């Protein structure tokens, strides 16, 4: 078991970060291509850059979505994301490991705050999972990936909590520790290649979306032709 832990802390950690780094570069390169394409597709229409950036940034603030029908979903998502951003980056244990590895450290969260954030993120994740399972529209839109990624995040946070509080756990520490390492590393590896890529692309996807829905002039005719309904009214 200790060999596996050493392996997960050594080569596999290196692999996870390399995949994340190189994969992120790939995603950004592709994103630039997509942006250029979306811009080209917008044709001769005037692109409202200012309005678009404002709108894109607006989506980051969860308060704007606190109306309508999916308020619990918005809150759960926001709580989870706060935990997801703060705990992995500012937990004292993580920062100590990073400092040991590359020699750079930064201020850390107090242990109590980290615990609260972890539990809150876990609660948020559970709500998100229940929402996906029992809300009609969400269930129809979800594929295996959506469930698997949620389960993976839950595993990482849950095992992380028990690594910090081994006395509360029924399983041996090494097992929990290995599970935490592997699930967290799997998340790092999957970030560039799954829907987790929104962590890298949240800035550009919205812009592509805002740009891309402007169809090319005469695009409707092409759609009709492609569907074999040329000349018919839409």
């Amino acid at each position: 078991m200790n060999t596996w832990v050493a392996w997960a802390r050594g080569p596999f950690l290196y692999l996870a970060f390399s995949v994340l780094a190189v994969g992120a570069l790939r995603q950004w390169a592709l994103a630039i291509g997509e942006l250029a394409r979306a811009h080209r597709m917008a044709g001769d229409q005037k692109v409202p850059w200012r309005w678009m950036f404002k709108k894109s940034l607006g989506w980051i603030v969860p308060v704007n979505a606190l109306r309508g029908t999916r308020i619990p979903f918005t809150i759960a998502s926001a709580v989870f994301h706060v935990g997801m951003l703060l705990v992995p980056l500012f937990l004292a244990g993580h920062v100590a490991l990073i400092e040991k590895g590359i020699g750079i450290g930064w201020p850390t969260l107090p242990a109590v705050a980290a615990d609260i954030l972890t539990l809150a993120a876990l609660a948020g994740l559970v709500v998100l999972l229940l929402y996906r399972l029992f809300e009609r529209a969400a269930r129809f839109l979800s594929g295996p990936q959506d469930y698997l990624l949620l389960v993976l995040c839950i595993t990482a946070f849950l095992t992380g909590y028990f690594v910090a509080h081994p006395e509360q756990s029924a399983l041996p520490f090494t097992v929990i520790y290995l599970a935490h390492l592997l699930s967290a590393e799997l998340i790092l590896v999957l970030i560039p290649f799954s829907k987790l890529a929104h962590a890298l692309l949240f800035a550009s996807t919205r812009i592509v979306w805002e740009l891309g829905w402007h169809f090319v002039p005469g695009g409707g005719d092409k759609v009709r032709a492609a569907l074999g309904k040329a000349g018919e009214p839409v």
Partner: protein
Amino acid sequence: MDNRRLFLFKGLMWILAGLAAAVAIVRFSLGLGVSTALSDTTPWGLWIGFDVMGGVALAAGGFVMAAVVHIFHRERYHAAARPAILTAFLGYGAVAVGLLFDLGLPWNIWHATIYWNIHSALFEVAWCVMLYLTVLALEVTPTILERTPFQRTYRFFVKLALPIMILGIMLSTLHQSSLGTMLLIMPFRVHPLWYSHLLPELFFVSAICLGIVMVMVESTVTSWLYKREPEMEMLAGLARLASIALACYFVMKMGDLLRQGKLAMVFDGSWLANLFIAEMLLSTVIPMVLLALPAVRRSFTGMWLLACCSVLGFVLDRINASGLSQVWATRRFYFPAWTEFAISLGIVAACVLVFFFIQERFPVDPHGLEEVEAERKAREAALPAFAPFAQVWLGEGWRKAAKVYSFLFVLALAFGLTVAPKAQPAVNTPAVRAVGASILQIGPGPRYVYFDHKKHQDEAGGPKSCALCHHLHQKGDVGTPCVVCHGNMFLPTSIFNHETHVADLHGNASCAQCHGKGEPIRVTPTKKCSQCHDKDMMAANPVVKTFDSKWAPSYKDAMHKMCIPCHVEKAKDAALKLPNLGRCGACHNSGTQSEKAYRAEFPVQTAAPGRP
């Protein structure tokens, strides 16, 4: 992408390229020591043998086909000319890239253009590669321009084509043989089975053979990948040509061995002799005999296999001549590190990908463009397909290719970064105690520096000057040997013995004598060595500096720093008339002066190990 075979093949190429990219990062950031199994004794490894020597030979198809089609007007081979020239261009590009990897200071690669050393065989090689690469670029240009709006430029290049072709063939003649010339100047390294005064000619003839079989491989592989009808008539013609050329090569090689009286060596059972037999069977004998049979020339698989076999054999020949056959002389085992294989394969993969890229966009082969166009039309009619797990639409055509292939590339790159070596393994190269008064042996190999002790003593001022160089006398020594402290050839040696110091200074109570009272105990003590040992060391002089470090410089650094400044100074002295004194060869002249001195001093040991 509808062609699954082509897709998988390209995917494999991208994976190889990704792995090579990772190794390239290591090679250019951490150097050759980390990324290769090369050493000072074996400085030419896989990259020179395969990428440079093999690459040049593999590119021979360009000049052979140019000669066959444009000089001898064998029009039925016309379809093979453009792919062959494109391959030659990419092959030479690969040679240049491979060379960049292998050069210790790759940023100096342009030096041969400015600093001319007309006595160097490598100088000729460098110029031939540069000129022929330029010529090949000019030969490829019409293909690129043919279907572009730049028709005037295109017509200009078409007019230029013939003289350029002739120039290209001339340069190839020079260059293929000059790679043989390069080996000609190392008779003590290359094994007698490969060494011959006819090496340049043999290299040239074998390049012609390899050129023909390489065009066959290219044609068969392309038609297999793109699922085209193979051009059997052309292939059969090439096979016949190859058989004749191989027969010429075989006669020449065997005749040469016979002339030198080395034929018996082929069957002496040593592993190099067996390697020679394997190489000859693969490259020449088997393809020559079988391709002469009309039945084989009617079979696509037969021709493909035999051409591959021959290519493999000739590449082995280049690797043997430039590397493996020298193991015999150096007696140092060398097997390429996996990183070296990764780079070699990655360069080939990158070339193959560029070949596909150009082939699918420019009229290299008239069928190519038609196929691409047909595929595009078929794709437009089809419904969009979703990626299996991610459930996203990847786009079509090159957008899909960009996403899929970059995915494979990135994964291979990250994997390569993880497994690539990150630090140089500490190689212990113990320095050897200097022997005699006129010869210094360097390292364990047959390498010497001629050193006239008496002359140096006289120059420096007689018996009183010993301390100028012999700066340390241990108890009972008259001039402690250099290797006692400078124990490693290339790495600094720790000369501080903590145990002895603790014992001599009476145990734990003495820590503060060196580490300072009330200070944390560190590896670096507060007290300097010279504060106690001043009387043991000679005072600093122009030749030897005293030191305050527990690290003695490597043997190489110690000697170089002691000898070079003085030599350079004396070389400037016009009255001495020794302008070459400051050059490396003044001391490192193994084979001549130092060899003689060594033999004179140690007559029992007749010669350096491994010399004929």
